[in-house]
């Protein structure tokens, strides 16, 4: 009789999900599924709304990464207007996105994952939390909070609020940065740099300790996709799509936003509200790919600043092809914080960000617009079709967590095969499965366009579907 384990809900991720682990007749792991059980349906209820409203509406998909939706939506609006955003506005948008990278990556590393790194996956769950982290390394906890605050404050200085700033709009942005804002950012940059370097050094120093996790937490060949610049440089807002394979070979390159459907298909499964995007040329599910920090570093050939370039090349030296270890998303996230801080430093020295020439005015000149941006968790697509009055007739959103869906399932299965033995769910296994999911820093509020916390439930099921064991966390 085969059996199934369900983990429901998953903790320390954004949203709500459960995991089920199926055992075979011999009690060995046969497969695993990461179910997303939320649904809100933004793609449907936005129909009929003016596309101008979409940055404000889609920002409300998520309180965690609203900036990504604001920027992706504004870019789709640019395409409908058929305008080229001014260089000043583009720099300001890029600055806000980098602030989002810093705050989101800091939250993922310092707040959500550091308890595992510093206290261990087998430590007492009663102390494997923020207070355990503070006890183990109070300075790191304090610095992590301030680094996240730095990123959030950049967003607030530009948009007027940390969450849901109604700032980026079709055609540009509502206003520039102020001189006072620049002074604030410059004043805090040294501390942010120091914290980022500290975290990166800390993580590299723990790599030996994490050898097992590096090999077990989602170590498998896959494709990777991200935006890259014209010369293959790391990109987070502009550029075009690139796919690379596990060996680092480029499979598709310079794919423009409007052409994304030539390379990406979307499959659905009856057991999850997440869609399953795949690389069309390889079909489903063989064309499953990963996005986010690991993918961006695998797709990029170089960084734009010397310090970030050193870190990128050191990261790439871990493998002769692509770095396939999901656990190293954490490492990639820290390299991206360095790259973001370097670029922020360049941007605040650029006089363009004080310019008030930041918005192009136009009417509907295209009936379809696609906006792509890199959210901290990965590539985000906003695809709108409008009528001549600018009212939405079709909306398609592809978010990063959805694109990592196949990989998350595979990661859970790999961890389960290694750690599940018998018919009971052990705490160490539970936390490792959760930690495997946390590597992707998934945002299920975005991926189902739903909202909520991310508690987790794990169930162990027999071959006949009966539940052998269930562990739930609020």
């Amino acid at each position: 009789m085969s059996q199934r384990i369900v983990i429901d809900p998953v903790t320390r991720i954004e949203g709500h999900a459960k995991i089920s682990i199926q055992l075979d007749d011999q009690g060995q792991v046969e497969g695993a599924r990461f179910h997303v059980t939320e649904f809100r349906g933004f793609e449907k209820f936005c129909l009929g709304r003016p596309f101008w409203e979409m940055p404000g509406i889609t920002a409300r998909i998520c309180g965690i990464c609203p900036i990504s939706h604001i920027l992706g939506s504004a870019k789709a609006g640019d395409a409908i207007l058929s305008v080229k955003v001014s260089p000043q506005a583009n720099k300001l948008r890029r600055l806000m996105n980098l602030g989002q990278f810093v705050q989101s990556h800091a939250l993922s590393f310092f707040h959500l994952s550091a308890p595992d790194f510093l206290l261990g996956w087998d430590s007492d769950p009663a102390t494997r939390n923020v207070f355990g982290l503070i006890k183990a390394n109070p300075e790191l906890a304090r610095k992590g909070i301030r680094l996240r605050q730095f990123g959030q404050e950049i967003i607030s200085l530009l948009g007027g609020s940390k969450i849901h700033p109604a700032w980026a709009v079709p055609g540009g942005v509502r206003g520039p940065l102020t001189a006072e804002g620049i002074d604030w950012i410059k004043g805090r940059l040294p501390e942010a740099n120091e914290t980022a370097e500290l975290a990166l050094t800390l993580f590299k120093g723990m790599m030996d300790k994490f050898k097992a996790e590096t090999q077990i937490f989602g170590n498998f060949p896959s494709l990777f996709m991200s935006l890259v610049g014209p010369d293959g440089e790391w990109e987070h807002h502009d550029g075009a799509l690139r796919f690379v394979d596990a060996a680092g070979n480029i499979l598709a390159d310079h794919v423009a936003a409007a052409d994304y459907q030539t390379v990406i298909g979307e499959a659905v499964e009856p057991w999850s509200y997440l869609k399953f995007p795949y690389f069309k040329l390889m079909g489903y599910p063989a064309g499953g790919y990963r996005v986010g920090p690991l993918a961006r570093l695998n797709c990029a050939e170089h960084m734009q600043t010397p310090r970030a370039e050193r870190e990128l090349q050191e990261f790439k030296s871990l493998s002769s092809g692509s770095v396939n270890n999901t656990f190293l998303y954490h490492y990639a996230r820290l390299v991206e914080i360095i790259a973001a801080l370097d670029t922020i430093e360049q941007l605040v020295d650029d006089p363009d960000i004080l310019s008030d020439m930041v918005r192009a005015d136009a009417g509907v000149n295209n009936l379809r617009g696609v906006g792509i941006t890199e959210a901290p968790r990965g590539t985000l697509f906003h695809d709108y079709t409008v009528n001549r009055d600018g009212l939405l007739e079709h909306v398609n959103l592809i978010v990063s967590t959805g694109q990592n869906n196949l990989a998350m399932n595979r990661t859970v299965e790999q961890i389960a095969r290694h750690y599940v033995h018998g018919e009971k769910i052990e705490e160490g296994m539970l936390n490792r499965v959760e930690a495997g999911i946390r590597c992707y820093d998934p945002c299920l509020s975005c991926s189902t366009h739903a909202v909520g916390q991310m508690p987790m439930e794990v169930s162990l099921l027999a071959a006949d579907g009966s539940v052998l064991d269930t562990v739930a966390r609020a």
Partner: protein
Amino acid sequence: MQSNSAAPILVIGCGNAIREDDAAGICAVEAVEAQAPAGVLCLTRHQLSPELAEPISQARAVVFVDARADRLDQPVLVEPLQTDPSGAGLGHFGSGGSLLALAEALYGHAPPAWLVTIPGASFGFSTEMTDAGHAGAMEAAKRILGLLAEMAGVGSTEA
């Protein structure tokens, strides 16, 4: 850590300004800010996030103001607030009690604190509060100003 009268009293309003009466905390704090005595720092937030732990640890006292789902004929409540380590996290949002616990753990000081809750009956999608929700916010502002006046009378001594 600071414990003298030079340290500010923080009044923190929390809520979602596009969910009707959920904005009551923000509305109340904006009304307080217009009349607040010197030494009072008013903040409004969509969520209570961990970054607030540092300014809270440096405050003389802190007043959290939030809406609560309740019948509108129920009163505004002003209650002393204790640290709540069980709810503390470093995620995107927390409670007033969890932020006090975080302030104590990270910075060694959690000031005396109060939680003011305002009954709200409608939390739909609108930037307009109900009349009753707004009246509750104004009542809360009055109570908070009274509390601030009491604290000013107490001077620099911590509870």
